């Protein structure tokens, strides 16, 4: 009796599991790779991972991606990695299982790129990299061998650090301390390397570094570093949260005169820049989330953008714009409270609305990105007056 009961139960469970697998498989939309879906009504379910909701530099990328995807008529699903590297793979897996048709991937560590590449290839889900990308040519080449790899839109983070390092050295500053994200973060590693190389090449010296895993807990380690190096004359914060922490730390010790430089421009830092509490800042490169969404859209519509060698394009020269204090108001109006690229701008990067779009369209858009360029464009669209352009020194 007992044995018979178990046999029947086992059979029932096996049938249920088999049906679940079959029905799930039927529910998965077929990949649109290679098909001409330039129909004006085709919409897609796009996934992306937000490394940590609540952190402005990450949330603004999600917001930008959502804006661009909704302009295309798509639905965006964002997974929250909760600042945990080991959760990223599980989140990507869950997104794929939920039936996404494309993925915008934010790879927080180098080792994740081949892993996610394989996952997407196995699941036949096209994916694009935004902001972060492999730092080696071999890593990029490996991705380009994947037929589901759509491309990269990112910034030269080392150049961002170099720009600030050179600027700091030009100010006559000699001793710097650095506050940045955890080691292994490809963005912050490159910024710090760039700053260090440029600053030391110009005769300065980096006398202390604090790498902090949790940006929300950065004030105390930043203060410890500042106290331990009272002779430093400047602080480079490789991210917005670390700049905030450095400002807070130095406010507690007003006798320590250290100039603050940073990469990343969040609302608070923009105000601090205007108030003179930050000497110089560059950032605003989160537009990569919108531009990469356009790359993905073209792929899904069957008109993938390719480079001269027929491979997925790699755009890693998105400028990290330098924001002078004089243009803070404009930046707030169009980058923080508004959008630097409108729906029309993003659609203009998609074959569906602009059949002339090609590799060079993206290349030029990305290379020309700057505060001045965007303001001049908005002037043509009637959003900025000539008087305002003159007032803010835009030529």
């Amino acid at each position: 009796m007992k044995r018979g009961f178990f046999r029947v139960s086992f059979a029932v469970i096996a049938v249920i599991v088999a049906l679940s697998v079959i029905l799930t498989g039927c529910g998965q939309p077929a990949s649109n790779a290679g098909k001409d879906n330039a129909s004006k009504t085709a919409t897609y379910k796009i996934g992306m991972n937000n490394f940590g909701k609540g952190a402005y530099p990450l949330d603004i990328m999600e917001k930008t991606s959502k804006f661009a995807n909704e302009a295309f008529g798509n639905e965006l699903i964002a997974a929250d990695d909760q600042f945990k590297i080991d959760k990223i793979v599980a989140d990507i897996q869950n997104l794929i299982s939920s039936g996404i048709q494309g993925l915008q991937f934010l790879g927080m560590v180098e080792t994740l790129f081949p892993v996610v590449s394989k996952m997407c290839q196995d699941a036949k889900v096209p994916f694009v990299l935004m902001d972060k990308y492999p730092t080696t040519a071999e890593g990029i080449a490996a991705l380009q061998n994947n037929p589901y790899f759509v491309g990269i839109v990112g910034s030269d983070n080392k150049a961002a650090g170099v720009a600030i390092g050179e600027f700091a050295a030009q100010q006559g500053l000699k001793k710097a301390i650095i506050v940045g994200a955890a080691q292994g973060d490809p963005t912050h590693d490159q910024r710090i390397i760039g700053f260090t190389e440029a600053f030391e090449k110009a005769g300065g010296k980096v006398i202390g570094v604090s790498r902090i895993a949790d940006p929300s807990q950065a004030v105390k380690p930043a203060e410890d570093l500042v106290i331990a190096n009272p002779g430093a004359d400047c602080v480079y914060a490789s991210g917005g949260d670390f700049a905030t922490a450095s400002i807070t730390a130095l406010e507690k010790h007003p006798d320590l005169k250290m100039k603050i430089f940073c990469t990343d421009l969040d609302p608070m830092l923009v105000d601090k820049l205007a108030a003179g509490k930050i000497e110089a800042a560059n950032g605003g490169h989160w537009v990569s989330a919108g531009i990469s969404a356009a790359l993905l859209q073209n792929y899904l519509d069957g008109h993938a953008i390719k480079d001269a060698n027929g491979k997925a394009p790699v755009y890693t020269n998105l400028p990290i714009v330098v924001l002078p204090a004089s243009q803070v108001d404009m930046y707030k109006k169009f980058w923080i409270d508004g959008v630097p690229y409108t729906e029309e701008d993003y659609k203009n990067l998609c074959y569906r609305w602009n059949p002339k779009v090609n590799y060079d369209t993206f290349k030029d858009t990305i290379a020309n990105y700057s505060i001045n360029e965007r303001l001049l464009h908005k002037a043509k669209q009637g959003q900025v007056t000539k008087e305002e352009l003159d007032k803010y020194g835009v030529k």
Partner: protein
Amino acid sequence: MQPSILNFNRISTNNNKRIRDIGIVLLCMAAIFVLFNILTQGRFLTFRNILTMMSHSVVPSFVAWGLSFIFASGTTDLSIGAIIILASNAAGICGNQFGYPGLVLGALIIAIILQVANTYVFIKTKIPSWIAGLGMAMIYESIGAFYSKTRIDKGLQVVELKESVRSLAQNPYIIILWAIGLILVYILYNRTKTGLNLRAIGGNKTVAKMMGIDLNRALMIGAVMGGIFIGIAGFINESYEMRVYARTGLGSISTLFFPLATLLLAQAFQKIINVAVAIPISAFFIYSLFNVLTILGVPSGTWQEMTLGAIVILFGILAQKGSKEVVK
């Protein structure tokens, strides 16, 4: 006459032993600090660094004091980290609106309400407190995340406390608050009926009930007391950090590790130093480890977190040394 003299001699011997043990502990700490100073080439034992370490020890001290009321009754509440986040943001919002009274009351009200709510859930549902606490933590984190998302959608971040209302995190006010907290907790924990009742409940609930202690009432009062100290931690935290971000996925629990390590070390010392007094000493000692690691350039997320994990385990062992049974 003879028995009185014997008692006096025994008490005197015990006091001498205690003073000797305290002296040994303090000497060991001093020796370690000298070593730290050598390792950091003289950057550890500067007046400014010591003052900074003291101010960094204040928030964990208040959280540990709050934990001592809650844990004393045998409750393991893992939602306290999430409560601190909400209390900190409430302090920021109210502080920006109403100044210092808003800063203080905003944090206290939220912390007390949430702590009392937790205790109510523990009492009524009879679910093990660590499970119920996890559930409450997820609820509170969701509230924080929703608030954060609402702000992000407006192009803003979570509330930033205005500079004009941040003096409580500056010296000497933060040290004065620390001292006031120490006096308050010492009296409440050791010299009031509630403190004694909580420890009796933590020792053995059945016996405490038979002694005539109203368990639920004592737990509720303990929750209020714990909530007060956690609320104080909330507004000091907001004053110090200026902005406290939301956490999700039970990430708020990690913020408890430092106060937990502080409490465990204090409990390891409680045979020679009253736990209320041992907490700030322990907080300062543990923070000094992190201070040295930061000065030496050890990145967080790796060795620093490993050190904290090892400390929690080691001090947990020391605190439970001598217990013959499994301790919750």
